[in-house]
């Protein structure tokens, strides 16, 4: 037997054939494009032939500089940060509150409430966006409601650049709180009931149980929830696309929408769009590393 056949065992062949389909597809449509995006962001390639094209040059970080000098970049980034704040400080605490009261049976019909609160997450974001756009529009129930409170109220929600982001933030809070509720609920159910029982017998109050047992047991989940919220808020696209399309005057734009506009509206600028997407990936990795470091410093009491 020569060396090649010794190496080419049935085990190796099976391994290769088993992982090949997944690796090939994943590397072709995820891993490669991610790297490709970075390479393209350093060139002036703007569509057309890519191989043996004498006009394609490396231009360094020109597009990144252009991006940082674009006011719409900063408007979009600010909106992403607002969405992130709503997610981390709105969805997560509310999701925890709902999970807690349902798990500890502080409200009746917990099952019913759980079903309804999670419902928005399963509906298509496009449908949700169009529905709430109508809801907040001058002919929608919101206008009627405000007009009964103060007659003569003018609905300028989607016209006023200062206000237009508010309905979006509200819908985001409404839509994804259910996800965090489900995550917390599943993890609350994993806590050993005997542990809580014992604490209660020893005379601990419900508050002490919450602060001393439940929150520490959930610290890892809270970190995961924060990471989900951060990467989720950087992803926001569909809802804004359907609700405002970034208007009025691109004031409700977010990074993903800014990139989309750069690449697919008016005259396409692919290198700039690639620079924006690389920036988004870097920010999301950076924020996640920060969350992880915070966890290592302050948390880590469980497991």
């Amino acid at each position, binding site marked *: 037997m020569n060396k090649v056949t010794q190496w080419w065992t049935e085990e190796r062949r099976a391994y290769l054939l088993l*992982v090949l389909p*997944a690796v090939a597809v994943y590397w072709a449509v995820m891993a490669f494009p991610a790297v490709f995006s970075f390479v393209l962001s350093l060139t002036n390639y703007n569509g057309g032939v890519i191989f043996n094209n004498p006009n394609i040059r490396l231009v360094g970080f020109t597009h990144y500089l252009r991006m940082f000098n674009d006011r719409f970049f900063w408007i979009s980034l600010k909106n992403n940060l607002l969405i992130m704040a709503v997610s981390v400080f709105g969805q997560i605490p509310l999701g925890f509150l709902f999970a807690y009261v349902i798990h500890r049976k502080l409200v009746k019909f917990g099952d019913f409430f759980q079903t309804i609160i999670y419902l928005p997450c399963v509906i298509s974001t496009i449908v949700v966006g169009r*529905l709430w756009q109508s809801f907040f529009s001058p002919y929608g129930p919101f206008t009627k409601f405000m007009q009964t409170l103060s007659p003569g109220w003018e609905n300028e929600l989607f016209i006023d650049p200062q206000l237009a982001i508010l309905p979006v933030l509200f819908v985001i809070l409404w839509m994804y709180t259910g*996800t965090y509720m489900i995550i917390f609920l599943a993890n609350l159910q994993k806590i050993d009931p005997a542990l809580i029982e014992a604490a209660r017998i020893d005379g601990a109050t419900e508050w002490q149980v919450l602060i001393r047992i439940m929150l520490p047991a959930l610290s890892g989940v809270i970190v995961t929830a924060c990471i989900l919220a951060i990467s989720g808020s950087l992803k926001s696209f569909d809802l804004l696309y359907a609700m405002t399309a970034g208007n009025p005057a691109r004031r409700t734009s977010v990074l993903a929408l800014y990139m989309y506009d750069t690449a697919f509206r008016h005259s396409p600028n692919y290198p700039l769009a690639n620079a924006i997407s690389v920036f988004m990936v870097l920010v*999301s990795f950076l924020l996640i590393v920060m969350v*992880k470091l915070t966890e290592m410093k302050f948390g880590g009491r469980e497991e």
Partner: protein
Amino acid sequence: MNKIRKSDFHPALRLFVYIMVAVFTILTLYPLYWLSISSLKTNTEFQINLLGWPQRPTFSNYPTAWRLAQFDTLFVNSIFFTATSTLVIIVFSLMAGFAFAKIRSKATSFLHGSFIIGILLTIQSIMVPLFLMSIMVGLYDTRLGVLIPYVGMGLPIGIYLCTEFIKSIPDSVVESARIDGASYFRIFGSIVAPMAKPVAVTLAILNVSGVWNEFMLVNILVSRDALRTLPVGILKFSGALASDHGRQFAALTIGLVPMVIFYLIFRQQITKGVSAGAVKG
């Protein structure tokens, strides 16, 4: 089970909790109610009767919206993309997960790790290069050109969940089958895959709700009417007929109903799937 002592919670606090839960419930049910009753009104009635129950409920908006938005095409495409991508993702993830979990190889840490990083990658970060690539290789505006990215996007979480699950199957199961002379493919087909049914269900749930509602990718990779899916078609229809309220709301209702039914049937599994899928980081 330990009962909560009511006295532990101030009545005002309990009231606050009830109000919060009730507000969220109303905020979900009322817009859906408003949407469905509005879809039963003609435009003339909608203008004079914004919020009330329709005086003469009519279903005539539905057939018109169905025809104008070409809902039969949209449904066929959405079902095709969702079913095919889900099936392929499950098979590929189980295969790779089996190899990663049960066949020793030096390549595993690198390959498996590359998928884990992929959990954090979003469509946004690869959207522009994917679009450019699909034009270069001639997959723009084709079914395959949408299907392959869908499979690629579902694989990271699929492989993570499958590897973890198959690791929990005792090594001795595989080893004794090896001693009996079974090939790895045989072990996969007749032992591992049947045992992995729970993780396959979780994956199916996660992927069905993800792909069915996916908008951005189809919107970019496809321009032909014949390849549009529900979210893309609904948005286009509702943008073009923004002032035609009755039909717009009928179209939104048609888009909403399948997922709501899916949710009400598979509520338990969806809940389980979501918490299992929440492993980012």
